[in-house]
């Protein structure tokens, strides 16, 4: 069976190469962020943490980080509320036209983000909602709701509806049965949906860039415009922080939720 073994090893080598390709830019950024030079260079020349200090001392970056976190939290809370309710209706109540509704709720996933951005730019201008936090959060909810619905419906399909029936028979009201029985059962799906939602909102550029008002700035838009002005190691430093945080978040999510089941 040498041919079979050769195949196995060729496949493994290919997989290793592709993983290398996937991780290449990540490694390059992390290395570049420690360079002593004021220009971007890999491998780094010398070793310094001054670019990390520079980013954290820059009020523009700090403001953008805080703003992005608040926006992502707002969008996540909003899309969780709307998304969990919708998922419950789709799976447990089996509303008429359910598949069509589900397809509609998922539409923003494949819709060009830039079109959503410019459409809302014009729409909010007419409503005088440009540069408002609520407007931005609602726009982010549109693109995060599909992720919540996907994760929560997957979880609901795996949870036994009889348990909720049992609670109802024993006298619990609808909401009590939902919050004390069903919600704990689907907690992994809700948590995965919340994580997706937070990350998708926190990362968004195509929608945010058209809607940010004076004095508003999200972190990815800040990095995006910084790159357009010219690259330097401080961009690599903030990127490295995001790489570490994303990696840790994903590792925790995999350990606690088995996150791979929800992607």
């Amino acid at each position, binding site marked *: 069976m040498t041919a079979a073994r050769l195949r196995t090893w060729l496949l493994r080598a290919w997989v290793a190469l592709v993983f290398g390709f996937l991780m290449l830019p990540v490694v390059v950024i992390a290395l570049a962020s420690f360079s002593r030079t004021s220009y971007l260079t890999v491998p780094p020349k010398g070793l310094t943490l001054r670019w990390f200090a520079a980013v954290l001392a820059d009020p523009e970056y700090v403001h953008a980080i805080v703003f992005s976190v608040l926006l992502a939290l707002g969008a996540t809370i909003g899309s969780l509320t709307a998304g969990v309710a*919708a998922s419950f209706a789709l799976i447990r109540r089996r509303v008429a036209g359910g598949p069509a509704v589900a397809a509609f709720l998922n*539409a923003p996933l494949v819709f060009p983000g830039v079109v959503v951005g410019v459409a*809302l730019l014009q*729409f909010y201008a007419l409503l005088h909602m440009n540069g408002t936090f609520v407007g931005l959060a609602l726009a982010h*909810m549109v693109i995060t709701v599909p992720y919540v619905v996907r994760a929560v419906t997957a979880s609901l399909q795996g949870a036994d509806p009889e348990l909720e029936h049992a609670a109802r028979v024993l006298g619990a009201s609808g909401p009590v049965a939902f919050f004390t029985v069903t919600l704990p059962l689907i907690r992994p799906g809700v948590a995965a949906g919340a994580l997706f939602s937070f990350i998708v909102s926190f990362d968004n550029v195509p929608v945010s860039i058209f809607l940010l008002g004076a004095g508003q700035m999200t972190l990815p838009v800040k990095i*995006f415009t910084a*790159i357009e002005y010219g690259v330097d190691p401080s961009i690599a430093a903030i990127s490295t922080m995001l790489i570490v945080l994303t990696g840790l978040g994903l590792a925790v999510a995999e350990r606690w939720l088995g996150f791979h089941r929800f*992607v």
Partner: protein
Amino acid sequence: MSGWRLLVPALLLLLVVFVAPVGMLVPTSLRSYVPLVGITGGVTARNYVRLLTDSYYLEIIGRTLALGLGVTCATLIIGYPVAFFLARTRSRWRNWLTILVVFPLMLNLVVRTFGWIALLAQNGLVNQALQALGVVDGPVKLLFNFAGLMIGLTHIFLPFMVLVLIGAIQNIPRDVEDAARVLGASWGSAFLRVTLPLSAPGILSGSILVFVLTISALVTPRLLGGPTYQVMSTLIYDEFLQRLNWPAGSAQSLLLTAMVLVLIYLSGRLARRTGAAA
């Protein structure tokens, strides 16, 4: 509570903050824009006529579609073996390897693209490596052209393709392939005549997903293509934020949307025709 009442918040959100604004691009796309004056009244198809006849726009549309096709083929060829491995391996590291595919997907898009700027620049790592290996004499231009966008976008969208294909390949019962082998098929013909056709629904939905995402991408084409090497979404970006020609930008947005919707519709029909659920 009845089912429909629970759906109200999500449906209302999408109707008001998604459907209505996109719908309102239609009247805007039929207006004209006069520099220094602004948007004028009167209905005209001029924006669409120019978009579909002017060679400048046609080149951008063609380039966008070529990138979509190129990136789709590249992610399929690179990703299929990886998905096959992850779907079939019995390694206890399998879930963590899957998470490693998800990681770039969860990592900020601007950050990933930034990495490619460092790699593909004139004095970047790729050029250094190519010259050190003696493949090329001088630096190769890898930014602000088709090659740069192909590399960057393939990297960005590869995880989507792999994840869709993993799902499709996992759904194929191993027995079917084993049966083909027992009946005398070589590994190659068992793969080509059993496994590959059975994973066709995944190939179709993965390809449509990657194609649609590629022609819609803004951040990566902008940063790797610069302001001069345009695709449809960067054109829309400039039309709205630099040239302030909202009518032309609306027409371009609706054309891009139409392309996406037609593709999804056709793939749905194709999936039904072949009896496969995509």
